[in-house]
């Protein structure tokens, strides 16, 4: 989209994008006409990467939380609408353009704790006040990037788990928990989500 078509007069000499509740953190890049609301949305931005969050132009992020591990990275395309979603990244979340995420939807690229019992018990000890004081290292956690392609609609109260790729134009019904890949233009629902048709 060229400058002439895309830019609204109200943005002609303002910042490219804005966060309504303060200055945009340096690790965050907002495109033209993007608006982010919510006072605490960058509270958990702990990533060492810079930039750690790239949002394209003309996106609306209403009260959408961005929660990071130390190596987290989130990239969002243009003209997206997220409301009250929570994006949790330990590795990488890539979201295309014209994507809608509904209320109370969680996207995570990690399980945050090891699946294997012995490692998980070690993790509970490392996370405890005693383990933290002793400087015990946390065991490695499996992470896998999440990719949500262009024109995907994700309903409210959905969960997108690690390693999932949702194909372009797919439709995720409200309340679904997506643990498998969704083909382009597929329609999924349920916990766990199953393919029920096409759009």
């Amino acid at each position, binding site marked *: 989209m060229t400058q002439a078509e895309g830019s609204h007069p109200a943005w002609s000499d303002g910042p490219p994008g804005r966060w309504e509740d303060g200055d945009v953190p340096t690790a965050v890049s907002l495109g033209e006409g993007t608006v982010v609301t919510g006072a605490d949305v960058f509270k958990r931005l702990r990533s060492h990467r810079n930039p750690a969050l790239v949002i394209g132009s003309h996106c609306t992020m209403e009260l959408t939380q961005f929660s990071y591990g130390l190596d987290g990275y989130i990239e969002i395309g243009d003209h997206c609408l997220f409301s009250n979603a929570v994006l949790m990244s330990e590795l990488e979340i890539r979201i295309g353009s014209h994507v809608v995420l509904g209320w109370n939807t969680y996207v995570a690229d990690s399980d945050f704790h090891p699946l294997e019992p*012995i490692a998980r018990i070690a993790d*509970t000890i490392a996370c405890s*006040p*005693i*383990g933290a004081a*002793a400087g*015990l290292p946390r065991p490695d956690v499996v992470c896998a990037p999440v990719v949500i392609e262009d024109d995907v609609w994700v309903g409210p109260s959905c969960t997108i788990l690690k390693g999932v790729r949702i194909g372009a134009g797919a439709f995720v019904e409200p309340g679904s928990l997506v643990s498998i890949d969704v083909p382009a233009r597929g329609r999924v629902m349920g*916990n766990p989500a199953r393919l029920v048709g096409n759009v």
Partner: protein
Amino acid sequence: MENRRLPWDWHDGMLPSSTVLHEESMVESSYSFLLDRSQPPYGVLVERGTSTYGGTMFDLGPRGRMTFGQFCMTNGTRFVCDERITVGDYCLLAWNVVIMDTYRTPLDPLARRRALRGEPPTQPRRFVAESETRPVAIGDAVWIGFDSVVLPGVTIGDGVIVGARSVVNSDCEPWTIVAGNPARVIRKLEAPDRASWPTPPG
């Protein structure tokens, strides 16, 4: 504990007299006990190395008792307890999990209507109704994914992993992964020998 105020507390409040905390445990805020009506000797008992963060809520009735084992971590779990909830050692409870041993109101619609009409004008308003309680027991090294619900009477065995946004309405065999609504076994885990479990420092 002499001083019932937590030094790091962001909420201006005190721990109830029925709360028993190990000196090496970590409770982030007294806000978690806003709904706690339990009585001494103890309502919430927290063992060594266990930490409760964020919006964790202990919603205990007058006869409610719940115990946390060692080295558990929870961040925003809600416990609705009118009788007994036990959590073992090394458990991870994620955010928005609800663990309840009672539905708080009678199941029979007419009895429920009577209970709702008999609402006492107390301040703060507390709902008191006789309803069935069935204790919940959670074993060691259990991991409950976010937004899951554990219904009254459920026993979760050692090492069980409950997938995110599951509803657990029946007992779970030890060392399994359960998920879905209602939760079903989706995989079995190999039970590790107790001797091979990591030992905490101290």
